[in-house]
């Protein structure tokens, strides 16, 4: 006999969201199991503190649970929408801690109690491939382009804050952001169809 949980597991993310909007707890649990890992890793990457990352992910997922019906499929995937909510909350936390510089490295493996998430589905394998491509593209970027992108995206710094921090003209920071993103985008475009 198929359980509600098993039925939910067979659904695509876009099909889970209306169920979450109707307060289906099994659908929400499947949604968390699919994206909770990367959400937590992202929050930890930005905040650099385990407790703060947990609070951030919990708040982000609760807001999705309470407002699941707001997902708009014309504006990207459920996963990217979810991660943008997590990222925005994490950056808000960083900014609210006035004067505290965000952690910009991910070197404290002891703080993590886990293993890399296993690939469960073909979709996840494709995500892994995309991640490998983007990591490859980021690593091939000139250091100065990679740095401004990482400071902006993972550090939550504005372009003028980055210019001050790195003692660069604002125009140089803008140019490096654009060139770096163009290269990553180009790498994605050349990937497997």
């Amino acid at each position: 006999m198929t359980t509600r949980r098993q039925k939910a597991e067979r659904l695509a993310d876009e099909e889970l969201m209306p169920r979450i909007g109707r307060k289906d707890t099994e659908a929400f649990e499947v949604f968390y199991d699919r994206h909770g890992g990367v959400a937590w890793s992202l929050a930890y990457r930005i905040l650099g503190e385990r407790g703060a990352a947990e609070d951030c992910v919990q708040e982000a997922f609760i807001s999705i649970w309470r407002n699941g019906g707001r997902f708009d499929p014309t504006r990207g995937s459920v996963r990217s929408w979810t991660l943008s909510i997590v990222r925005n909350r994490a950056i808000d936390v960083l900014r609210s801690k006035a004067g505290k510089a965000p952690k910009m490295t991910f070197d404290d493996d002891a703080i993590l109690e886990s293993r890399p998430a296993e690939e469960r589905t073909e979709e996840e394998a494709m995500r892994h491939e995309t991640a490998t491509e983007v990591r490859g593209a980021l690593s091939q970027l000139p250091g100065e382009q990679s740095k401004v992108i990482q400071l902006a995206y993972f550090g939550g710094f504005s372009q003028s804050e980055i210019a001050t921090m790195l003692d660069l003209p604002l125009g140089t920071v803008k140019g490096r952001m654009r060139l770096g993103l163009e290269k990553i985008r180009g790498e994605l475009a050349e990937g497997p169809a």
Partner: protein
Amino acid sequence: MNANDHDRRLEEVAAYALGALDPGQVVELEQHLAACSRCQEELQWLSPAVRALPETVEPRTPPSALKRRLMAEVHADAAAEARRARGEERRQRAETRPGLGEWLRGLNVGGLTWKPLAGLALVVIVIAGGIGYAVGNGGGSGGGPEASVSTFRSGRAPGVLAEVRREGSTGRLQLENVPPLADGRVLEAWVQRDGTVEPVKGLFAPDHRGEATTTIADLGGVDLVMVTVEPAGGTRAPTSAPIASVRID
């Protein structure tokens, strides 16, 4: 706008996509985006690169306590929601029952007993209800008074155009020419009532034609409707200048 100004804006699109534009420049760029197809294309082209950035973080299994805490809150929420729904159902049943009972008691006249009359009354109600339903759906004008409809507009092309259509106490807010939003940004509507600004329930986003709509459940006493671009999930108070505002007379 000259070519240099345009190139400067184009350069800022990457920072906007990364959420790194300085707050004061966001509204200015969003207004430019509304009227510039080349910058819109640039934003659409770069967005997948930004969306892919979180995937570069090595995925790890989160602490199991996080899922336990989260699911406990979700189950508590779902239980509270179910209790609220049951309470509402009981309240609605309670509201209808005494009215009927009182009406039936009032009919205990002329030596007739209450119980047979109650049965008769129910038959009358069912038949009358059926007739009323048929008349109401037959396009007759015999319903309640029609809600008054008014329309309020603001904005000028090529900027964002806004229209509020008021029907009775509710309103429908429709926007056109809304520029594409950066990832993680949504539209949030606000109403001003007695000098106080309140959020409208329900966030929304423009479609591929730049059109967006939302409903304002209560327009009573509202003198101004505004729309701002906010982080996904919404905020309790506006964090940026309105991209559209409509005065309600």
